């Protein structure tokens, strides 16, 4: 069965090579190059069904989790020829093509047929044709279901990132109940909401740890104003003067929320996390994460305060 599969892959690769060797269809200077798809072409860029729902089998990078790595630690294409394990920042997969994680916009994902359900990830796939001396890679973003097509620190970093379990945001305001116009509202969150978190992903021989650190809290006050703070804020404690702004994060309403929908302002805090990774002698950053929470806040009419 494995032999059969390997043979199929080999045929596909040889076909690609044969087509790419013809000068016409792949002239790279021609801006139509990447959308040239003669009928029956196996140019990976022409495989427009690749990576879409129900069709992700097309982009199976080799039915192995070991990527292009052989038992001897060297990277080989399906024919067994040794190839570089890395090219242009991508790693060799079992099909001899190179993969790296792709951060696609929603618009691109939609154009590719939508986000498939289940485990998997988006990768930028590049297939080189070295036989003809071409250094130009063909490829495109593809969805790979299940395990990643290659094992590299950067790919493991994405897995580790996906395992990060960030804390819930617990908002603490002072005064704790209704807010008063012209009296500072102390904006803070429970310390547990602002604590670095790590997660690790590993395969035998390679282990990568992703660490998320909170860097910014953006408080949308519900009245159109936003207060950005570099920390979790300071919770008011006995002995502090509540009439003064908090040492690091507060906002002062000037108007009551009486005319807002429901008579309340919805305060939403969004915490931005930077995610870095390190492992196997490499390190880097991956896209950040956010956590968020909301709380309704009533800002009283100031007259009501006076009569209290």
């Amino acid at each position, binding site marked *: 069965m494995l032999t059969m599969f390997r043979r199929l892959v080999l045929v596909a690769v040889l076909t690609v090579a044969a087509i790419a060797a*013809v000068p*016409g*269809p*792949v*002239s*790279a*200077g*021609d*801006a*139509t*190059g*990447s*959308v*040239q*798809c*003669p*009928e029956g072409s196996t140019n990976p*860029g*022409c495989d*427009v*069904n690749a990576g*879409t729902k129900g069709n992700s089998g097309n982009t199976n990078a080799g039915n192995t989790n070991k990527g292009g790595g052989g038992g001897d630690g060297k990277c080989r294409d399906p024919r067994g020829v040794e190839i570089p394990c890395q090219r242009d920042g991508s790693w060799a997969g079992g099909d001899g093509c190179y993969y790296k994680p*792709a951060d*696609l*916009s929603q*618009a*691109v994902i939609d*154009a*590719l*047929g939508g986000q498939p359900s289940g485990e998997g990830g988006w990768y*930028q796939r*590049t297939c080189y044709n070295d036989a003809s001396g071409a250094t130009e*890679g063909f*490829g*495109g*973003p593809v969805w790979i279901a299940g395990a990643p097509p290659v094992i590299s620190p950067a790919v493991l970093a994405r897995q580790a990132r996906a395992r990060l379990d960030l804390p819930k945001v617990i908002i603490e305001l002072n005064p704790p109940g209704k807010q008063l116009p012209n009296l500072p509202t102390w904006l803070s969150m429970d310390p547990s909401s602002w604590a670095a978190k790590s997660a690790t992903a590993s395969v035998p021989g390679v282990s990568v740890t992703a660490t998320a650190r909170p860097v910014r809290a953006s408080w949308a006050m519900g009245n159109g104003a936003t207060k950005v703070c570099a920390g979790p804020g300071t919770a008011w404690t006995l002995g502090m003067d509540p009439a003064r702004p908090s040492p690091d994060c507060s906002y002062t309403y000037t108007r009551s929320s009486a005319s807002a929908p429901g008579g309340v302002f919805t305060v939403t805090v969004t915490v931005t996390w930077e995610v870095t990774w390190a492992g196997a002698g490499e390190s880097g950053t991956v896209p950040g994460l956010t956590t968020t929470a909301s709380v309704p806040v009533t800002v009283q009419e100031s007259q009501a305060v006076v009569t209290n």
Partner: protein
Amino acid sequence: MNRHTGVVGLAGVLTLVLAACGSGTPEGKPSASAPSSLMPSASLAPSAAAGRDALVAYRGMWAAFVEAGKTSDADAPDLRKYASGNALKLIVSSLYTNRDQGKVSKGALMLDPKVTELKPSEAPTEATILDCVDSTNWLEYKASGELWDDKPGGKHRTTATVTRTDGSWTVSSFVLEGAATC
């Protein structure tokens, strides 16, 4: 036989309509090349209107591709206006890959599309377009402004399927063949 003659006649009319726009190139705003503003649909038979609308979508797609190619912008909204399905996948993949490789496309692309088939003929929902896409001057550049390489562009035989969905026409697939195929 009748149908065949009809299509040929139609193609002639459409060529004239497009010639009136004076453009063999999708340079500039896609809407600028839309003949719809020049030719009220009321004056055309339903099939002629369909052929015209299909060509607008086809030219619109290339115009949007050329525009998006200047910055390799795979998110360009105009692409979604004129292309769908596999055509959109192909273009978006191409632009995403070009962005990834630090490549942009510049220059004018010349088109000469003709509708070769409309079906069903009574109220068409699918048009087939045959074109000779001339990319002699539409070339790939590095971000630094230099040409990506010294390979020339060329003329590519292209067939496209344009479909009408929910009242609007989009290019749903196309096959662009190698250089010097037309």
